[in-house]
């Protein structure tokens, strides 16, 4: 009996030693968690999918991929296209009306096809939970699991014939062959075998870091500076129904995202022919001609304006809301000035409103080196 217990005890000790040895051989996958610093007044609820937590390594990789023209799956200089080809930091990650390759700010893909709508600002998207795109076709509880979040937007942009017209297999094989990238994927996702899912996740993580919250108006909110009388009067106009009445859709001090991320028919048209309006997603007749309200942050850099880019300048936009709003059965009930054709601003009020809107420009965001093109790509280092 004593011998039996001695043998059992020895076997148990041996198994413990062997299992300990096995554990020390493995290099654990331990990416560094990345915490978003919530700016003053901003929402605390973030749209970060459970299956793609943000990590320092994932964001670093995402930044390389965001700027690498080989994301198109091609290497010829004429066929390079990255996210940054259209999403330019100096234009708040839109194309901008002065884009060298897209006259008037109307982007087209590698095939020459123009995108159906113009671009939306790619900022503060970690706070968008109501849908991406002008009509919100990507939303978290979409029955189609392939159309839910930023990760899906990355894939769609790469595949779309009016954008990169890419091939996921070719792209992942290309990046697998580039020195440095497999190691970065290993650090970010625990495997050097590149998958397109990991490409989507890395780029989405980087995009979620693009936070603009340090404009002159933010500094005013934080009590760090005073605005000019014209800017302050513009803010009053922005936030009053008898003024320009922008705030119900475009926020203000109490909603510093400067958008609700919701969809409105704001009275641009009486005839609706766009097959990709909000109605195409919801089937609700009240959504005919409705599109997402864009954030007003950095808006002066984000022309052309509206989903179809019909207005070149902010002056044009203000003129429209002032005198050219038209009625239709699906016009948003918030457009209560429609009977007068708009909010009827005086020339001084127009100038004051513009002065305020310009306080939402965030120069530190537009030049933040963390968001800019890396000096070298991994295979060049």
């Amino acid at each position, binding site marked *: 009996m004593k011998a039996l217990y001695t043998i059992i005890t020895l076997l148990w000790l041996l198994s413990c030693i062997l299992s300990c040895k096995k554990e020390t051989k493995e290099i654990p996958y331990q990416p560094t968690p990345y915490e978003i610093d919530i700016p003053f007044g901003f929402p605390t609820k973030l749209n970060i999918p459970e299956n793609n937590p943000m990590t320092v390594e994932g964001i670093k990789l995402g930044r390389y991929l965001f700027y690498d023209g080989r994301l198109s799956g091609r290497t010829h200089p004429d066929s390079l296209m990255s996210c940054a080809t259209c999403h330019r930091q100096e234009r708040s990650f839109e194309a901008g009306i002065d884009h060298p390759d897209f006259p008037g700010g109307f982007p087209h893909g590698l095939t020459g096809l123009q995108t159906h709508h113009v671009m939306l600002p790619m900022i503060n998207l970690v706070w968008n939970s109501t849908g991406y795109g002008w009509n919100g076709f990507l939303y978290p509880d979409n029955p189609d699991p392939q159309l839910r979040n930023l990760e899906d937007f990355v894939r769609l942009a790469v595949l779309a014939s009016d954008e990169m017209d890419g091939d996921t297999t070719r792209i992942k094989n290309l990046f697998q062959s580039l020195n440095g990238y497999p190691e970065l994927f290993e650090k970010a996702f625990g495997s050097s075998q590149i998958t397109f899912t990991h490409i989507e996740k890395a780029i989405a993580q980087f995009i979620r870091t693009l936070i603009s919250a340090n404009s002159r108006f933010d500094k005013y909110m934080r009590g760090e500076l005073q605005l000019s009388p014209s800017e302050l009067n513009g803010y009053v106009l922005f936030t009053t129904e*008898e003024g320009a009445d922008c705030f119900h859709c475009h926020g203000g001090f109490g909603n510093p995202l400067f958008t609700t991320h919701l969809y409105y028919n704001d009275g641009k048209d009486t005839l609706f022919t766009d097959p990709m309006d909000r109605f195409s997603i919801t089937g609700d007749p*009240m959504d005919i001609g409705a599109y997402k309200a864009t954030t007003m942050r950095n808006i002066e850099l984000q022309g052309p304006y509206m989903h179809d880019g019909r207005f070149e300048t902010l002056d044009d936009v203000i003129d429209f809301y002032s005198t050219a709003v038209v009625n239709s059965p699906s016009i948003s*009930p918030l457009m209560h000035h429609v009977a007068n054709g708009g909010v009827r601003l005086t020339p001084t009020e127009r100038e004051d409103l513009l002065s305020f809107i310009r306080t939402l420009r965030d120069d530190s965001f537009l030049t933040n080196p963390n968001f800019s093109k890396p000096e070298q790509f991994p295979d060049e280092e």
Partner: protein
Amino acid sequence: MFLLKINITLFTLIGILVVSGCTSKTETPEPTTGKLTLHFDHEIEQAPIVFDTMRYTNAAGNKYLVNEIQYFISDVTLHHTDGRKILLDAWEDIHYVDTDLPDTHNYLFKDEIEPGDYARLSFTFGINEVKNQTLMFVNPPESFMFWPDNLGGGYHYMKLNGKWLNPSNQVVPFDFHLGIGQIYYSYPDSITSFVQNYFTVELPQSAFSITANQTTNIELVMQVKNWFQSPNLYDHNTWGGDIMQNQEAMILGVQNGWDVFKVKNINAK
């Protein structure tokens, strides 16, 4: 022999732990309190609202439709038959209701409630001046209700958005928004003071009982038509599409709000 002793001791300890675990389960006390939920429905002419459809006429004769209603209630208070007033959930007691968001139609109170008979309940429509602070809500959808600081700050008590047929036979929007009012020295500038427009809704027909280990559900219904008729006739042709800067118009809605809510049903399960 030594190892045998260790094993016997180990089995004895495990046995004690298992038995004590079972014992603690049986000692869980029976709940001595109950729970309360409020459910909100929205009707016109005693029937659920058919949204976005021009089919209603108010007391002033305006034909109108309703697109959406969003509002806050707070300070829900239970009035015990013995005379005590019990304020539920204290500071957290601000609830947002949105006709487009079904999840907001139910309000489950966190507080455990003492069993007994309650004569009625009351609540604040809107938010009182102590609680109604700008940036109190930073997350949507509540944050989208913010009321600009230059107009008094805090949050809209209600947005009731719709359209009416105006005298020119045009269907045009109205935003029946209630919140902090302003008194102007010279309109629209020079505000001299603000008016707290929140008000108490009393529900005299809301006697209910709380039973231990049960949830009592009180179904309330907002009769939207009542916003426009009693004691004040509210005419959209007079007040137009927006009233946030028009205390004269807002006060009519505030005074009409006393009988907007009715108790539809009370049940327990």
